[in-house]
């Protein structure tokens, strides 16, 4: 219990003093996870929409893969990305291992399947309602896809938040491909793991509380923006 209460105290004092190292770690975490989510959305949404609207050979396989990838352990994704980016791996010459870019790639691979799979569901549901109307208006498949993505934007935000939630909370992948290098690839979750291993449980928990707080703030902000917009557009 003393650990818990002192964790709240430590968290409060960390935030109040706005420690430069902490700020750096928080900003890097946000950058990496937001970038990964952004790219995952840019790829995952059209992919999900295409899977919802088109019937083509191999579609079932891709959908099954996406659903399987939604539950992939981050460590496995981290390991795969590591083996790809390692100097002895196929992408070794790029020298991306142990950089924030590598972490973005790993988190992208974690977020994209979630966003794609949830987008597929959302777009398929919406298409039930829209299909005949859009065809009647003369919209081709590509235009229909764009329209469904745009009109489903309020539901799709949930998909994006789910993707962000997964990557901002994971430690396995970023630890392996980032290396947890101080001032370079150290993020919230790897710091928490590190402090735990040092036995600084209160500090680790304090960082965890800040991470949770950030996550809640971000999600809450996104949702209230959505709710306001939804009231406007219905």
């Amino acid at each position, binding site marked *: 219990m003393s650990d818990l209460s002192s964790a709240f105290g430590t968290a409060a004092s960390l935030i109040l003093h706005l420690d430069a190292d902490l700020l750096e770690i928080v900003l890097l975490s946000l950058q990496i996870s937001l970038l990964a989510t952004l790219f995952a959305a840019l790829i995952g949404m059209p992919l999900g929409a295409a899977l919802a609207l088109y019937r083509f050979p191999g579609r079932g396989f891709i959908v099954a893969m996406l659903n399987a990838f939604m539950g992939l352990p981050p460590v496995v994704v981290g390991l795969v990305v590591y083996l790809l980016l390692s100097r002895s791996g196929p992408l070794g010459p790029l020298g991306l291992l142990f950089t924030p870019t590598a972490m973005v790639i790993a988190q992208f691979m974690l977020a994209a399947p979630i966003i794609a799979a949830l987008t597929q569901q959302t777009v398929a549901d919406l298409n039930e*309602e*829209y299909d*005949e*109307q*859009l*065809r*009647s*208006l*003369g*919209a*081709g498949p590509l*235009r229909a896809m764009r*329209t469904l993505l*745009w*009109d489903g*934007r*309020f539901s799709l935000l949930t998909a994006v938040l789910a993707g962000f939630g997964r990557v901002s909370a994971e430690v396995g992948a970023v630890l392996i491909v980032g290396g947890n290098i101080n001032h370079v690839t150290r993020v919230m979750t790897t710091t928490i793991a590190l402090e735990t291993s040092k036995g600084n449980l209160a500090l680790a928990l304090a960082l965890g509380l800040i991470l949770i707080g950030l996550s809640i703030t971000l999600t809450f902000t996104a949702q209230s923006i959505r709710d306001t917009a939804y009231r*406007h*557009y*219905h």
Partner: protein
Amino acid sequence: MTQPTATIIELDSGKAAPEQEQTCKSPVLPLVISELCYEANQQRLLKYVSCTLTAGNSTIILGPNGAGKSLLLRICQGLIAPASGNISWSGLNPVQARPYVAMVFQKPVLLRRSTAANIDYALAARGVPRKQRRERVTEALELTNLNHLARRSARVLSGGEQQRLAIARAWVTQPEVLLMDEPTSKLDPGASYAVEQLISAIRKQGTKVIMTTHDMGQAQRLGDEVLFLNRGRLLEQTPAKIFFERPQSKQAAAFISGELLY
């Protein structure tokens, strides 16, 4: 439902004359339907429907619920395929004819964007260049008396406004034929009246209106000819006046007297 309907009539009388000429060289009429059947779940919902619909008059499809009225319209628009039989828009199949045939659904899906953007969408989908779109959108907004709501989100409009928007969105592409599925079934009398005024204005411009309804008064006000469907069969195709005065089938007579509902 709150807007003055008088403006619609004024607008219409100003524009009717020049538009009417276009209908003479309509590329999709007459519509020839022969031996059309439609099946779903092993049930035959349309049975050997045959008719010819020509330019210059409006056609009301009447019939009780479940008669197959909406199905017929959706087949005409090429949204669903018939099980057998033939449908020809002056030689074009329904999908090919779509650029000339617009449809207003019973429950129109309004896109989550502004009123004006909804109308603009229909033009963009037909490949109308951006430059011409703005003017035509304004024209459609004026016709349907929705100018003051142009920037309002379509989904927050009232039922009557939404229906007028759906009509504006269909009309703006200048179709030869306008298919309408129960356009006033969900509206209160005031809003229904406004929509009827709008339909008759469009009709007077020369656009062929093919419309389903089960409102007899509306059929009398808007229809030149009546198709009477019952349980998937086309029982009558007669001028409206004759249909209401001397219905030929006993089902039609029962329907008119309010006895045939299902």
